[in-house]
């Protein structure tokens, strides 16, 4: 889809009438809905093409009528207005005929749409259930049956890269050939997890759960984005799904579980960490979670996101407790999220330590995981 885009446009314009008339999906050119890769999206795609074709035919008829009228009924060609046209047989009945024709078209579209809608709302038992949590500005995926959690952050690329704003550090991995249920929610504002190839959209609402599903038919990587305005980072939260065979999916799951168990054991041990270890880990956590708002040098965005460099609570010698509190619990009424439920004690300890000792901040103190445990 991306590699061809330099030549795509002229071709797209030339092929458009053909594409519309034949119903051929030319997703390569990126001017139509992308080629579906799931049973449900295929059904929706067919419905889209049906309405497009019906609409095109209607436009052709309307345009032809207007063009003919402009040609045939011109004053300068000596056309004489028919002052009684509205009183003719046609004039008396057109207001019935036209709505009846339109109603017929409407109902045939609506019946087809209604059956597809029932498929969208089909709540059959799923093989895999994934909870998709939107937050400013990343996606968190929880596999409900396996206790695996995947956090997808934007991968920073140059604006010339074919995957600019389309790639994440850790995509959601799903099996093909199985029914996957998505439970959609959000931790802060409205988001909308959208990947047109595999899933119809439902929005992510804080405090509520929405449901949608997919049955992916083709292996591959599918890319979408957030589709509900969620603030400054709205353009910067791609959603990426890697669809793999069920065997590969099982293998991936096992690896993840092992990694996860190791990290959890490390974080909950009573070990006292050295400052250097915390600083290194803290930088990693900061880059992944905090940098989008508070910026690379901790300078924030004036008036929108406060600066951490030289900030009162990031710097004050006795303010560590306040600092920990705001990271763990967030700040209501602002975009600052509560990180307590999202990060483990070690990660929070590391990032707080990092923030208190970087960009000229001179608090100098070292925060340990046990301090975070106490603050929760």
């Amino acid at each position, binding site marked *: *889809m991306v590699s061809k*885009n330099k030549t*795509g446009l002229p071709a797209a314009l030339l092929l458009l009438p053909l594409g519309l008339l034949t119903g051929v999906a030319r997703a390569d050119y*990126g*001017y*139509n*809905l*992308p080629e579906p890769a799931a049973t449900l999206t295929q059904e929706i795609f067919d*419905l*889209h093409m049906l309405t497009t074709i*019906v609409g095109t035919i*209607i*436009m052709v008829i309307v345009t032809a009528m*207007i063009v003919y*009228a*402009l040609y045939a*009924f*011109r004053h300068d060609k000596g*056309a004489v*207005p028919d002052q009684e*046209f*509205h009183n003719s047989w046609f*004039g008396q009945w*057109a*207001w019935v005929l036209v*709505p009846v024709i*339109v109603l017929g078209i*409407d109902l045939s*579209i609506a019946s087809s*749409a209604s059956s*597809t*809608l*029932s498929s969208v*709302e089909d709540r059959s038992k799923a093989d895999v259930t994934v909870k998709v949590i939107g937050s400013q500005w990343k996606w968190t995926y929880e596999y409900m049956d396996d206790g695996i959690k995947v956090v997808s952050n934007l991968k920073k690329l140059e*604006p010339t890269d*074919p995957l*600019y*704003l*389309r790639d994440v550090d850790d995509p959601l991995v799903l099996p093909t050939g199985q029914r996957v249920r998505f439970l959609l929610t959000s931790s*802060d504002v*409205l988001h909308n997890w*959208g990947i*047109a190839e595999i899933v*119809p*959209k*439902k*929005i992510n*609402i*804080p405090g*509520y759960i929405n449901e949608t599903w997919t049955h992916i038919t083709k292996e591959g990587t599918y890319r979408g*984005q957030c589709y509900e*305005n969620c603030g*400054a980072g*709205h*353009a910067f939260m791609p959603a990426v799904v890697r669809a793999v065979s069920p065997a590969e999916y099982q293998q991936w799951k096992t690896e993840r579980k092992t990694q996860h168990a190791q990290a959890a054991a490390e974080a909950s041990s009573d070990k006292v960490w050295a400052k250097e270890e915390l600083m290194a880990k803290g930088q990693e956590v900061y880059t992944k979670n905090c940098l989008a708002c508070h910026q690379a040098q901790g300078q924030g*965005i*004036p*008036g929108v996101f406060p600066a951490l460099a030289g900030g009162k609570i990031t710097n004050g010698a006795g303010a560590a407790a306040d600092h920990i509190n705001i990271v763990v619990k967030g700040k209501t*009424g*602002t975009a600052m999220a509560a990180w307590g439920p999202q990060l483990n004690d070690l990660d929070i300890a590391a990032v707080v330590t990092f923030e208190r000792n970087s960009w000229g901040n001179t608090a100098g103190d070292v925060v340990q995981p046990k301090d975070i445990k106490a603050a929760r």
Partner: protein
Amino acid sequence: MSVATAHDDHHDSHDHGPPKGWQRWVYSTNHKDIGTMYLFFALFMLFFGGAMAMYIRAELFMPGVQLANPDFYNNMVTDHALVMVFGMVMPAAAGMANWMIPLMIGAPDMALPRLNNLSFWLLPAAAIMLILSILAPYLFPGTGGPVNTGWTLLPPLSIQNGIGMDFTIFAIHMLGISSILASINIVTTILNMRAPTMTMMKMPLFVWAWFFTALLLIAVMPVLAGAVTMLLFDRHFGTSFFDAAGGGDPILFQHLFWFFGHPEVYVLLLPSIGVLGLVIPTFARKPLFGYKALVYGMGVLAVLGMVVWAHHQYTIGMSLWATNYFMIGTILISIPVGLMLMNFIFTMWRGSMTFETPMLFGIAIILMFSFAGVTGVMLAVVPADMQYHDTMFVVAHFHYALIPGAVFGLYAGVFYWLPKWTGHMYDERLGKIFFWWTTISFNITFFPQHFSGLAGMPRRIVDYSIQYTEFNVISSIGGFLFGLSHLLFLYIIIQTIRGGQKAPDKPWEGSQIGTPGLEWTLPSPPPFHSFTQAPVVK
């Protein structure tokens, strides 16, 4: 103004003429003067909102964030919509209503002239509030960022915003009060001030269109006012209407907003449909085809428009029954709209057409608005909309609906009535250049957005991935041309006000065919007091 002086000499038998100087305008109770002020206000806001659109297109010209931070971009998106909807289209249509409704129904003035003055002067105050909401983050540093929510002001994002959001809420309150007062005035005028012989079914279509528009506004504006007041309470007084943590529901705001927001679409469209109902018969030299069908069609449209609001929210997770209802209701809107477009086409059919600027706009509207209707049916289909939702396809659709459907209708009205308003003919050659320039550049701007939207580009993003570059480059170039064309529009208006060929009472050969308006029985420009005795309609 020259209009006033010319008329003073002519009506010197009256013991009171128009007040002189600034008092004439500030204290005005004259429907024509207030109408003129509405129109100038709308013209100013057109350029203000247009400048924001130019910024948006400049930012989207290339991938990457070039011009400002994402919050400022979202602020421009938000205020572009608010300014264009509440500051431009509605006041322009209200200006035409003020000017033309009393003239068309043979009334001496609006029914409630002092209310009329108030409803206008609330607008500049609201505009100042809106400008303050943009400036707030810079005037009061540390009080939060710009209003970055989009014009729908959806919570919880709108709860996060700073003091700018409060200014926006107050601006909406004032704009709403202004609209409600103006609407009450219009309904009262139409029902009570008609010349005794003018029955409802003899009224020109424009009057009918505004009658339905005003009823819609009175019905739905208070809902918006309630919704933003609840938002204000959530922000400052500890309520949780829209906060799930406190037992509220963020989706409740969407229902309230769109209960107002969808009928609002018809508020924007109907006055222009009314203008079309005059322009097309005039230049086709033949009565309007299906006058009754159009009147009833507009009534059906107004009623249907009020019960399909949730089609803006197909993705919120409604029950299957509710979704089916909103889908079928929405698709059925194509019946009255199809009927209207058919009536206009058959008005041209077997007519004798000339192509002055208002007529050119009229024909372009029929074509492009049909196209918007077709993409509207596509969007009405729920499962497909779950793919289109919040993509540029939606942006393309509603700009095709609102620019031809509302704005071009107003342009048609401006050119149609400029001779009547000013007493001078505008420059026809420049008018035609303006038409072609603006129509072609409009299509260059918005047609490609259908493709980038289908390919997946979301709305309200400050930056996009490179696969959407080409369509955005075309769109931006079209956008700049479209913006530039309005300087010509401004020039034509100023030139016509300053002078030019004298306009006869009936500037158009086909005036009054199928449009029984009384405005053509008055001189151009009409005297300060329009009808001192009730005229008789045949």
